[in-house]
């Protein structure tokens, strides 16, 4: 179990080295760390912005990149219209800028290939970000742990990491991608077009060779409440379900 201690994770500066638009509302920022660390898939960093008059704003962002991406981390930041940090990233931040961050943080919502599986990942919107780190870590480790990702997005064009996820799904190496669109028809035969529910969770579990040993659920509070309840209704024991929520 990781210990996110301040001694191990002081504030550091990180330089933006790449910016990639993922969806209309989500852009990935790649940070080269001045003090490189190796995180665990699922962990987050705290980001701190400072104005000339000393005013500071800080937010937590999950790391999208795998632990294997040593020295550089990817944060996929969703633009929130009434935010003060995400609009800065979307409108102002540029390659070469230095940003203060500390991490890696969080010792519960984490998965390592050595933990094994099967695992069931359930993400809503940008809640897919920490799950993406797990999926990438699994692929890079050539882990045999079966994994299914149920990813709920409003529309096809808001499926963050879509092409990469479909490529990983096509490898048929024990990773299964289940997309569900809440405001558009399904685009792939095996996908859904509705909100997550117990029947969907049962079918996702059936894609795994045996019952999952852990489930990770991340998204808005409303999404996580609904998805966690759907898992419980699908007979997943509550103590095997780990959640991470954001928003009000």
């Amino acid at each position, binding site marked *: *179990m*990781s*210990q*996110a*201690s*301040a*001694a*191990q*994770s002081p504030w550091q*500066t990180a330089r933006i080295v790449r910016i990639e638009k993922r969806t209309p509302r989500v852009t990935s920022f790649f940070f080269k760390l001045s003090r490189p660390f190796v995180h665990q898939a699922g962990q987050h960093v705290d980001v*701190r*912005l*400072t*104005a*000339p*008059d000393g*005013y*500071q*704003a*800080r*937010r*937590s962002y999950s790391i999208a990149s795998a632990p294997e991406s040593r020295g550089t981390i990817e944060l996929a930041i969703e633009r929130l219209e*009434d*935010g*003060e940090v995400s*609009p*800065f990233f979307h*409108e*102002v*931040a540029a390659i070469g*800028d*230095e*940003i*203060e961050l500390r991490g890696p*943080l*969080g*010792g*519960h*919502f984490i998965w390592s290939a050595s933990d094994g599986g099967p695992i069931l990942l359930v993400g809503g919107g940008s809640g897919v970000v920490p799950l993406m780190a797990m999926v990438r870590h699994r692929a890079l480790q050539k882990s045999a742990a079966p994994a299914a990702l149920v990813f709920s997005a409003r529309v096809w064009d808001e499926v963050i990491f879509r092409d990469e996820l479909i490529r990983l799904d096509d490898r048929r190496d024990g990773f299964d991608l289940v997309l569900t669109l809440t405001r558009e028809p399904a685009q792939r035969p095996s996908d859904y077009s509705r909100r997550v529910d117990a029947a969907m969770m049962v079918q996702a579990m059936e894609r795994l060779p045996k019952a999952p040993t852990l489930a990770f659920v991340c998204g808005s*509070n409303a999404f996580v*409440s609904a998805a*966690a*309840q759907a*898992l*419980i209704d699908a007979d997943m024991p*509550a*103590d095997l*379900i*780990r*959640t991470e*929520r*954001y*928003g*009000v």
Partner: protein
Amino acid sequence: MVTRGFGSGRRPPTDHDARIPPGQYLEQGFPVLSAGPTPRVRTEDWSFTLKHGPRPIKKWKWTEFNALPLTRMTRDIHCVTAWTKFDTAWQGVLVDDILADAGIAPPTAYTLALSFDGYTTNVPAKDLLDGKAMVALLYEGKPITPDHGGPARLLVPHLYFWKSAKWLNGLQFTERDEPGFWELRGYHIYGDPWREQRYSGDP
């Protein structure tokens, strides 16, 4: 370090700055955070046990607990995820009144709050006494919803809000300051928002 281009945009109102601890921002909503699914605890199944180590001192059922003196507390609360919410209005039973009903003085200097879902968090006994903390039963005059920790949650508003354990079912006095769930996972052993004690090793 000044961030290039930051600070000219939207900023929260500053007229309440003295009430916002360092690194926090003012939140109007009431975000929900938890490590797992929301337990649905029925009041008929609910109980609260006061313990000294493994030994139960007294156990209350829901109706018995609700017969204890109710106190109002309206306080600002501070979550380690950086939101602060002003003037949250609670009613519940002060830890002082729980101890009085059990007829004991604090037997040790430390406690662990215990929850139905297995969650634990450690709080020094002195931080629970003298009107500083309660077992809250009502939020804004209504039963606390399951998402916010109902039927009953601990309320220790002067510490980061992970210390205010949801779905509370017991309080255990311990000989040592024993780290709880998040404290074992990298969060600060005490958690004073005014000293910004977020993670273990923070001063």
